[in-house]
């Protein structure tokens, strides 16, 4: 890729934007998944212990 071509900034900007949005989507999705599964696990064991 020739970095001195005109309008190169737009190419870089669009790739940067895509990376930023897709990366944050991945991070938030994985984060929410881990947090909620841990919470569900905790409540489940707590409830099973209470019922035992």
């Amino acid at each position, binding site marked *: 890729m020739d970095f001195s*071509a005109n309008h190169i900034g737009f190419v870089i900007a669009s790739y940067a*934007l895509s990376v930023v*949005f897709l990366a944050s989507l991945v991070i938030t999705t994985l984060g929410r998944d881990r947090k909620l599964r841990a919470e569900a696990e905790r409540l489940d064991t707590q409830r099973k212990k209470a019922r035992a």
Partner: protein
Amino acid sequence: MQFLANPTRFLRIANAVLPYVWAITVALFAVGLYGALVTAPPDYQQGETVRIMYVHVPAAWMALFVYTVMALASAVAAIFRHPLADVAAKTAAPIGAVFCFLSLATGSLWGKPMWGAWWVWDARLTSMFVLMLLYIGYMAIWAAIEEPHRAAMVARVVALVGFINIPIVKFSVDWWNSLHQPASVFRMGGPTIAGPMLWPLLVMGLAYALLFLALHLTAMRAEIAARKIRQIQIAEIGDR
């Protein structure tokens, strides 16, 4: 009533498949980006800016594909009353909305050097903009209705009605666009894409699709956990 018929089967499959899906996604992105940024030749007309196509077109494909997945899931939920399908539709929406936004943003970034304006009401961009509004409407319905079961039923209708409207909007916007023939007729993807320019686009498209699969399975797993939490809370409250 056990709200989710049998999430265990789905969870077992998801847990098994996810690591591989993530691995393939990363590999596809590596190959796709290499192709897009290195091997693909610059366009004789647009020069380097044509490379924006490799992030713009896959995002547009995915925006449409994910809405189709949502509509299909809603139809399955409506016909077979399978709550897991509602979860699939609900969790797909935010991912689809991000793809849609990215296609609009990269479209605008591509349009600026070509048309000199950040935003031109070109047929494709206008239809994509309306699709974005459909996504916002769908997510707003889920956020507005507290009780998940009623929200699911309403959301199915919104997804299906939205889906039927996509071709209608597409057709009318294209016709509207030809009516107001803009000064410069600009073909987004160029007349025909030759080999070395084409395969990176297909690889990037596949990479975006696999990324969606990985995100969707993870998001569904999280939503199932969230519903389980809500059920336990209700049960806990019920005991007092």
